[in-house]
């Protein structure tokens, strides 16, 4: 596991105020995020999403419980070495250009000068920031700021990425590019936690989500595959687990045993492709069954969970 939270509790105390004024933002949350997994953090305002992100980023201390990133305590230098963080409202020094800002953060990461330049060139191209890389940040639109903030978060090729409302202010092209980039990062093994109110966007990115409500996890780990039309049950003679690990992306694989794989299918045309790739990978298929499902989308789930508690 890349991230593990155990019995995480956070109480905000006001200075010189009595205990009655305490605000309990999180009430004993336990969760984990695996390598190559995108987890969407959803919930109404004041649910504790930002507090959870801040705790994972090591920005605040838990009142009880602990958070570990790659086996290290969240605030430790070792944990921060593999962390990329993008806040909801990115702020930069207005006089610095995007290039100077990236160089500054590269230096904070302890990267050598040449590695910083190479990384800046790569991210500038990837996030299409060429046009304004030399302009001062004070002139930036919200979308430009978001791209720069994302570039900062990716400067160290993080193993764990924390994103707070990443698509804020991005134009449709920017949103599509962001989605593609995050999918690539996921496939490369980066664990990603995204807090967002844009449920439609989130749905296209992730199949796993955590629903927070008043500091508690209401629902965790329920699979909602993006655009899923059904489940493909494939029966194999043996070694199903090993074959699945080798051939299928984790987001597609809903469950597996020694002789059966359950795969999320988004389109009818996907079925022959999946079957042929399994056969090419050495699988001895004994049976295939496509189960069409009427699965609720993330917005339906959000509303259902919210209404259940109100």
């Amino acid at each position, binding site marked *: 596991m890349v991230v593990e939270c155990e019995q995480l509790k956070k109480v905000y105390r006001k200075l010189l105020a009595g205990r009655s004024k305490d605000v309990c933002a999180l009430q004993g949350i336990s969760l984990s995020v695996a390598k190559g997994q995108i987890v969407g953090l959803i919930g109404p305002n004041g649910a504790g999403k*930002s507090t959870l992100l801040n705790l994972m980023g090591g920005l*605040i201390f838990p009142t009880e419980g602990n958070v570990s990133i790659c086996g290290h305590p969240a605030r430790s230098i070792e944990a921060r070495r593999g962390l990329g963080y993008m806040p909801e409202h990115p*702020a930069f020094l207005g006089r610095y250009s995007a290039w100077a800002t990236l160089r500054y953060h590269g230096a904070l990461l302890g990267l050598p000068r040449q590695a910083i330049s190479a990384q800046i060139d790569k991210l500038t191209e990837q996030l299409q920031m060429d046009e304004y890389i030399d302009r001062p940040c004070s002139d930036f639109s919200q979308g430009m700021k978001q791209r720069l903030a994302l570039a900062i978060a990716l400067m160290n090729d993080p193993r764990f990425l924390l994103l707070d409302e990443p698509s804020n202010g991005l134009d449709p092209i920017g949103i599509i590019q962001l989605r593609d980039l995050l999918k690539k990062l996921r496939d490369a093994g980066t664990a990603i936690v995204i807090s967002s109110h844009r449920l439609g966007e989130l749905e296209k990115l992730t199949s796993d989500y955590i629903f927070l409500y008043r500091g508690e996890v209401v629902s965790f780990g329920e699979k909602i595959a993006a655009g899923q039309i059904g489940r493909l049950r494939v029966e194999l003679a043996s070694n199903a687990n090993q074959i699945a690990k080798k051939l299928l992306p984790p987001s597609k694989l809903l469950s597996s045993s020694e002789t059966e794989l359950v795969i999320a299918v988004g389109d009818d045309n996907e079925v022959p492709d999946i079957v042929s790739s399994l056969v090419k990978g050495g699988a001895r298929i004994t049976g295939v069954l496509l189960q069409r499902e009427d699965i609720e989308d993330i917005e339906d789930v959000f509303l259902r969970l919210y209404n259940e508690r109100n």
Partner: protein
Amino acid sequence: MRAYELMKETFSRKIYIYIVHLSWFAIYGLFFTLRVHEEKDFHQILFIWGGFFLPLALSAGIFGDDISSGRICVVATKPFWLGELYIYRLLGLSLQAAVHFVITGFLLLIIHRFTGLGYIDDLGAWLFSCWLLFNTWAAISTSLSVVVKRAYNFIFLLAVFLFLASLNSILSWNNPDDAMTKVINAFGKYVCPPFTLLTKMVEGEYSKYSLIVGKYSSIKAVACVTHTFVLTVFYSFFGVLLLSRRQFTCSRE
């Protein structure tokens, strides 16, 4: 690379920093060329403006701005000891001040050379004592900036200083032998940045008591400089401690 970027940031973070430096040069030049004062007055003005007001102005919001904008949240997730952030920013201020006082010395010498105005005796010693005082005040102000948002560290420190100075003056004037007055005096002398010690050192007052170099007491001068450094380290230690224990929330104000 990290040290360089953090030190450079203290100078280039705002256009306001350039304005402060230029305004301070103008103020020194103005008082230097005015004929209405005595030599000692100008040096005192230089000492107060350069050693006390300059660090407050340059360190205004040095952490507070980052905390209130939420910028600190991204910086604090980078893999390095947060104490480094404090130390390099303070060193950046100190380096800026050193360059500032060297430029001040050159400017005053040039003005004196071409116009004959002003006094340049002991200028080097005064500028050095300004830098020492600057470091101590900068450490206090920077540490305060870790706990207060925006540039309130400047206002808060100025208000506390004025209050304590007024209280000290009133008590000293009314009841100089009172125990309370002595406590406040001792506090001002040993805990606060050492205005009196440094002034007396540069004026050569301690030369009466021990071995002298020029007009300065060597032992007392070393003691004064050490005392100032110890205070700077002491206040910096608090800043580092506060910063490494501080929690950061990313809600922007």
